[in-house]
């Protein structure tokens, strides 16, 4: 048995979406260079993962695409829309953006938090249709039993899943997730990423997320964006890019990159030898 919204989605053809284009992006904070001459194009229906060492501008890149950080130069374009200060609020309606912070300290229930994903569509009385929609999203990630719980009683990982549901509730065209699995156990890491990949294909989202786990990235990403000191070091499929050399270059860690039976690379790191 399907929920109403899922059923209708199943019948719809894949929605047509635009590509997200970034040209010669430069971002600076004082003297600190956060992004240097970054250019790339993201196609709808693909999962793109940003990889790179800490403090290399991954979150900054997401924030810049969301219009939260001013650029020094460069252009960000989605279809015919160009990101500018004036149309910022309209630009943001296309995004489901899940920031890194998963702290939720507010006297609200899980379903209310999910509903806020679509706050523009909420009226004084919450329509049953909206409640059902929020619940079907919760159900699709296996959390419908939490719907009436106070969010302050949730664990960090549960909060993270709820905030993922909130991002989906926005019916985005572009989905940006900043370390969406940082607090999740093994089970929910795969629940979240699997759902993300399925929905990205089905809804034709342009998905861009930051991950740290190279193996998860290899399993779920169509493309990797490798960032190094504010520059786009490489852009391509995990198969092409994940090599021992690159891992050493980025993280100064020795690693073997092997291949599983599906041809997906997997990374086994080596403990540094005692100094």
């Amino acid at each position, binding site marked *: 048995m399907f929920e109403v919204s899922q059923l209708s989605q199943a019948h719809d053809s894949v929605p047509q979406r635009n590509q997200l284009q970034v040209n010669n992006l430069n971002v600076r904070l004082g003297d600190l260079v956060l992004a240097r001459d970054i250019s790339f194009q993201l196609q709808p229906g693909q999962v793109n993962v940003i990889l790179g060492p800490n403090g290399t501008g991954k979150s900054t890149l997401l924030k810049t695409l969301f219009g939260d950080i001013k650029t020094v130069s460069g252009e960000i374009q989605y279809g015919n829309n160009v990101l500018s200060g004036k149309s910022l609020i309209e630009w943001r309606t296309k995004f489901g953006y899940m920031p890194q912070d998963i702290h939720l300290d507010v006297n*609200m229930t899980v379903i209310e938090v999910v509903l806020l994903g679509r706050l523009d569509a909420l009226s004084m009385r919450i329509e049953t249709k909206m409640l059902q929609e929020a619940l079907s999203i919760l159900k699709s990630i296996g959390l419908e039993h939490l719907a009436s719980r106070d969010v302050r009683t949730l664990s960090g990982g549960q909060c993270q899943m709820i905030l993922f549901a909130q991002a989906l509730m926005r019916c985005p065209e572009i989905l940006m997730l900043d370390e969406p699995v940082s607090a999740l156990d093994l089970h929910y890491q795969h629940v979240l990423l699997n759902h993300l990949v399925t929905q990205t294909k089905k809804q034709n989202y342009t998905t861009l997320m930051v991950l740290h786990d190279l193996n998860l990235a290899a399993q779920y990403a169509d493309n990797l964006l490798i960032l190094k000191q504010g520059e786009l070091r490489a852009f391509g499929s995990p198969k092409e890019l994940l090599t021992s050399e690159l891992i050493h270059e980025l993280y100064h860690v020795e690693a073997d990159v092997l291949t599983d039976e599906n041809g997906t690379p997997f990374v086994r790191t080596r403990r540094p030898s005692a100094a």
Partner: protein
Amino acid sequence: MLSDVVQQAVEAQRKSEKRRGMIFTSFGALLAAYFILDIMTGPSMIDASSVIYALLEWVGLPFQVDASTQVIVSNLRLPIALMAIFVGGSLGMGGAEMQTLLNNSMASPYTLGMAAAAGFGAALMLYTGSLGIDSNLAVPIGAFVFCMISACFLFALASVRHIGSGQLILAGIALLFLFQSLLSLVQFVSSPELSQQILFWLFGSLSKATWTNLAITATVVMVSLFLLLQDSWKLTALKLGEERAKSLGVNIVKLRLKTLLIVAVMTATVTSFVGIIGFIGIVSPNIAKILVGEDQRFFLPLSFLIGAFLLSTASVLSKVIVPGALFPIGIVTAIIGVPFFFWLIIAKRR
């Protein structure tokens, strides 16, 4: 099977909305009772049925009470009782929105220096002899203007992109100290009689209520309530944190400015007519939060009702503490507010 879970969750949500609706209704009923009690008490006590009949006659229904009762009820006590409701309500609402905006349960127009600024404006007018205008007009105008000046300073800060709520609170507290010092300065250089007059203004009193200023207050407060409710979902989203609200597409700077403006106009209006009444602004939203949570659809109107209820209670008390005399209500609110306040600090929430 699946739709059962959905159905249950929808019902649970509706049930919680109904529960919060009931709390709202109960406070409404409680407020109505205190409103009647407020009209009953005074130098001459009037019994409840006479008050109700007088009110019904006053609105044009076929009831009859003797003329002197009718005069006391409708001309003397009704404007004060209504003023208590609107002023208390606006203080509760102002506190609720300040606390939402700054994400701090100790914020209110009072703690951010708006009330102190109004007090300074009023004192300055009294000191300068009202600049030749009728002092009944000049003092409220002075209070309003200075309240708005302090609010403008907060606006300017709030519109700066990188200024967070923490810095806004600090700036507000700095303003509070500034205007309190300026107020002391005016009192210091004033004659003892004038200083006493200023002190009385600062105490806050509902007895300055007339039908005219009541009408102005009621209009401003009701329009503010209406406007704030328009943004209730955005304000609720703000409670998830500014970053998150932004990620949900809320224009934080615009929402902040709009809400601050509404609260400032409301606070300035109320303060200029009744003087400084503290504590209600901090306490009411905190009680409302415990009772109905932070969904603004319930939180905001309930903050209004609780504020109105507390001020009506204070109004009754101010009349009965010293029989035959009117105790300054600004003093009473602090005294009944403090136990609540301690309870809030000590009681473990959630």
